[in-house]
């Protein structure tokens, strides 16, 4: 066997991605078939720009979901003799059942660049949309009342939001995403403790001291404790405002949300889920929380602006005259009318979050050093950029195409939502 030409590489990659093509084709066929019944999502298929963007985004989504079928090698495993090999090199000493070539070459540690890129999609897409969703929950829960009520509440929150926005993002990341900060617990009751007791509390293995007095949290956990509570608050208020006239139903719905929400909350924020279903690596939590923290103030400002604009509308005055409560008006009358710009911004913001995650990886502050996420692989690849550019260029192009797809999708959505 011999090394592959560029066209052969392209064909082999296309073949390797067959599951993704099938999934994409099915999605498009079904969506276009039923587009008149699918609301804003259906209208997306009237705009070519939106369709291209949607296709690019869904390509990466399906790649991430079907990554196990697409990869040619274990993305973490080094193969001897394959260090920095160029595109389409034959695998030296391939055993039975192995794929025959390194399609996009090998990296600095002799791992398959193609497989790492595919797995990187999974790593990026499992964080970015979730982090954006959390940022939106925080921004909406705070921004809607700030815009509606105004006054001191608004002034105070806007000041804090501007403070966070005035922080250079990279500096914030360097300060927040460090191993030291994860390990360092801030004791809440240190004022009441003697020096010796404080030292004993700080020592990891000490159970001798009074555990309650030793209660302390690391800074990322504290941030998580604050930021992760917002989705629960938001959904509870949302349901309560809708169903408070029917206490039976209200109690059932809000109760379900509280039970599931607080269960997830205990696991995600504090890693103390009694059943062990919800948990997050401390490092991942730190990255996640930092990204949410950076994004939330911008969402807050956008939501606040939209609500300030919408609250002067007639239907709000009509609701007030009918005697509807402020939360019902905010969440069930104003918010649905603000959904157009918010959906558009959500798409844009996932792209921005992807860029932020890449930045974190680029500075070596990512989730784990050998993680295949695109930022970290670009960081690793740039060390050999001059002689073996493929290790950095491949994930760079992948990241760019995902963000471009999200931007085009947002553009298409904006066009279509403005039309009605």
């Amino acid at each position: 066997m011999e090394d592959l030409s560029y066209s052969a590489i392209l064909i082999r990659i296309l073949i390797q991605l067959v599951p993704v093509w099938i999934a994409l084709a099915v999605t498009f066929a079904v969506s276009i078939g039923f587009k008149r019944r699918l609301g804003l999502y259906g209208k997306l298929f009237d705009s070519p720009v939106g369709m291209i963007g949607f296709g690019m985004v869904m390509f990466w989504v399906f790649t991430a979901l079907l990554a196990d079928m697409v990869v040619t090698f274990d993305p973490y495993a080094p193969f001897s003799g394959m260090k920095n090999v160029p595109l389409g090199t034959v695998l030296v000493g391939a055993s039975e059942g192995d794929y025959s070539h390194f399609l996009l070459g090998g990296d600095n540690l002799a791992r398959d660049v193609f497989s790492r890129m595919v797995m990187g999609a999974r790593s990026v897409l499992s964080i970015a949309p979730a982090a954006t969703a959390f940022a939106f929950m925080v921004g909406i829960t705070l921004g809607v009342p700030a815009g509606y009520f105004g006054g001191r509440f608004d002034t105070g929150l806007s000041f804090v939001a501007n403070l966070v926005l005035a922080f250079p993002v990279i500096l914030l990341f360097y300060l927040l995403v460090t191993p030291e900060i994860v390990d360092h617990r801030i004791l809440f009751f240190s004022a009441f403790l003697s020096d010796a007791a404080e030292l004993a509390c700080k020592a990891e293995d000490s159970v001798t001291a009074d555990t309650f007095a030793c209660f302390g949290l690391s800074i990322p956990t504290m941030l998580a404790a604050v930021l992760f509570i917002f989705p629960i608050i938001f959904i509870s208020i949302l349901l309560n405002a809708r169903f408070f006239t029917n206490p039976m139903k209200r109690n059932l719905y809000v109760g379900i949300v509280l039970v599931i929400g607080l269960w997830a909350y205990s696991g995600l924020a504090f890693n103390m889920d009694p059943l062990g279903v919800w948990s997050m690596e401390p490092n991942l939590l730190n990255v996640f929380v930092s990204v949410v923290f950076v994004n939330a103030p911008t969402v807050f400002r956008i939501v606040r602006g939209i609500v300030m604009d919408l609250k002067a509308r007639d239907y709000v005055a009509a609701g007030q005259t009918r005697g509807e409560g402020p939360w019902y008006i905010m969440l069930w009358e104003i918010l649905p009318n603000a959904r157009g710009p918010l959906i558009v911004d959500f798409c844009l913001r996932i792209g921005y979050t992807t860029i932020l995650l890449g930045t974190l990886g680029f500075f070596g502050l990512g989730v784990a050093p050998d993680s295949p996420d695109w930022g970290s692989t670009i960081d690793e690849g740039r060390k050999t950029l001059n002689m073996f550019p493929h290790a950095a260029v491949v994930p760079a192009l992948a990241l760019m195409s995902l963000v471009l797809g999200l931007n085009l999708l947002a553009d298409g959505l904006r066009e279509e939502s403005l039309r009605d």
Partner: protein
Amino acid sequence: MLIFVARRLGLMLLSALVLTFVVFYLTNLPPNLEKLARSEGSVRMTDEAVAQWIIDNGYGGSVIGRYGQWLGVVPGWSNVDEKGVPRGRCFAAGSDPALAPSYCGILQGDWGYSTYFRGPVLPNLGEKLGATGVLMLWVMIVMIPTSLLIGILAGMREGSRTDRVLSTFSIATTATPEYVSGVVLVALLASPVTGLSPLLSEWGVIDGKILFQGAASPDRITFWSFTLPVLTIALYGIGYIARMTRASMTEVMTAQYIRTARLKGVGFRQVVLRHALRNALIAPFTVIMLQFPWLLNGVVIVETLFNYKGFGWTLVVAAGNNDINLLLGCSVVAVFVVLVTQLISDIGYVFLNPRIRLS
């Protein structure tokens, strides 16, 4: 107007205080201090020795007190270590404390000692800032005219072919963060094995192995070494500013007075240049000013990628080497830049747009 500026200044001062305190708190966390003690003292220090080192070097006591000392509103610490040598914030170990000033913080111009540069922070930081200033100057020279031109050309006739091509280009550049465009540009133009360089050197168009250089230095600023870093930072900003300019231009072009001018028989070129441009450029001005904080990000990435020893490189080095004073200095500069550009953009907006009146 004066009250508006005064209020903005007061708010800015408060923001600066809060932000620097946050940075101070985060850089002075006990684990960082312990790391500092071990790197400055010796790696094999016992835990007790580390604790003693921290107290001897003035890192004990409350965070707020130390923040005050660093700021220069609380008298600097001084004590005598176990060998009987007087030590303090405001004087070198062993010299007479009575001769030293009692306040020495950044307000007095003492930004502390950098453990990485083995010297005072301020002159080192100033030098690096100068280097970044040169880079930024070129970025501005490339970025602003290009982006305004693209935005105006695209917004002049909404929906035309020029508009669609230029808008797609703008979207593509906003989707390309600096670390992506930098890597791609280096691979295309500055690598001896891929992209254009091997072709060109085979044809004998260029003497060396590579077309552009993949590294830049403030001491030797040449076209060949500066093009790629400048282009990398500028590209990301170009798309954004161009889109804002386009939006503002299309809005102006549909305004009544433009139609009036057209109906009066003024040529299209005259309408664009004399009537539309001035009003269309108000919004981009704000965007350009608010772009500075983003450029700061770009600078850090590009200086790391191209190993250009400027402000961004210093920030990365300071954070990587746990150089607390240097990192604090960098953040003061960064926060200052962000807040001042916000202020300028607000005030400038009011000046440029006579329709906005301050209450």
